[in-house]
């Protein structure tokens, strides 16, 4: 199982790759500030949320079925990483 810091690093890289935000460095994204509100270095919109959800599902082998939960999960890097850790603690999904 990956540790929280590693998942945060991978999450930031994943978001930037998925949304083609290459010139931005993962280190510039703050872990505790909303990605949706416009207060972080990057701002993701409702279209991007689904892209990020699908990318997270593939990368970490977890499921996020519900968009309402998705918005809460994708809110910050911290919330994404905590969700991934909590899912991984429950064991892997069948491939």
């Amino acid at each position: 199982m990956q540790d929280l810091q590693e998942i945060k690093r991978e999450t930031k890289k994943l978001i930037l790759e998925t949304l083609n935000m290459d010139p931005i460095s993962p280190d510039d994204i703050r872990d505790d500030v909303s990605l949706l509100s416009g207060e972080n270095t990057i701002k993701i919109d409702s279209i991007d949320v689904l892209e990020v959800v699908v990318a997270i599902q593939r990368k970490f082998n977890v499921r996020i079925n519900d968009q309402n939960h998705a918005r809460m999960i994708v809110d910050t890097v911290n919330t994404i990483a905590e969700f991934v850790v909590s899912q991984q603690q429950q064991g892997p999904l069948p491939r």
Partner: protein
Amino acid sequence: MSQIVFSHAMAAHCESGTITALLNHHGLHITEPLVFGIAGGLFFGYMKTPMLPFPSVFVRTRPGKILDNFSKRSGIRFIRKRYSDPEKAERELDALIDQGQPVGIQVDFFFMDFFPSWHRIHINVHFLNIIGREGDQYLVSDSYYPVIARISREALRKGRFAGGSMAPKGFMFYPVHVPAEIDMPGGVKKGMRNTVFNMLKIPLPFLGVKGIRRFADKITEWPKYARDNDQLAHEIFRINILLEDQGTGGGGFRFIYASFLREASGILKEPILEVYSKRMMAIGDDWRNVSLFASRIAKKRDLGLERLGEMGNLIRANADLEFSFFSDLKQVVSNLS
């Protein structure tokens, strides 16, 4: 201050989530997918009428139908009321809260100002529970919000009496009788039969699987309804909202239906339904792919006939999968005692 001790929980869909939370409060331990499935909430429709400037897609039965069907199939009696007078609606809501009765209500989501502004859009068929009041504020258990929230009397009134199609008209509901014994296996079977009928047997070409096929066939005609590419992009993007964003639980309600089938497998002691649950989960993933495809081409304004044709093919493949799925489920259901 009146605050009812109420177990707040998030849910995939507002109507089934609100009903579930109310029933849990009244001591009935039931899950949201079970409420949704027993009520036969899954559906598909493709509408284009002279009243609608643009074709419209829906993936569930009409708002309120989950409450009606679940009530009928479970034997749980609900009081339901609509109002023309906002003050009377407010007085009656206050009285119920003061008596310790949590109340489900219908509102326009836009006025639920405890949500961040970027989240709020006008949907006047949103459901939530009112579980207390203090001064000029109400305490709200909204299944899309992580904690119990507060809303002003004024904002709630605006939400309850917003206009438009399917206007809430102060609609409120609460259970008044929960039978000691509920025939869950019977309700599950009726719910599955209802959904199979809705998806396969309604003799109208725009409902059920036939509606999915019509959607697939007609998507390439959408440019003729749009005044420009921006409007077309907006309408194509709405496919994503309809499938993923409007409290569908994702995949156009197919994920929540998959959870229902998993529970149904245990209730009916039919392991085969576990396999159907996995099939339905995969169908939900395919609808999510349609949603992603729609949002990508809308974002890039890549809306030529070739792209729309590709999307039509994805939708048609889902029609084939759902036809096969519900035909097989029909066999299973007809073999149940």
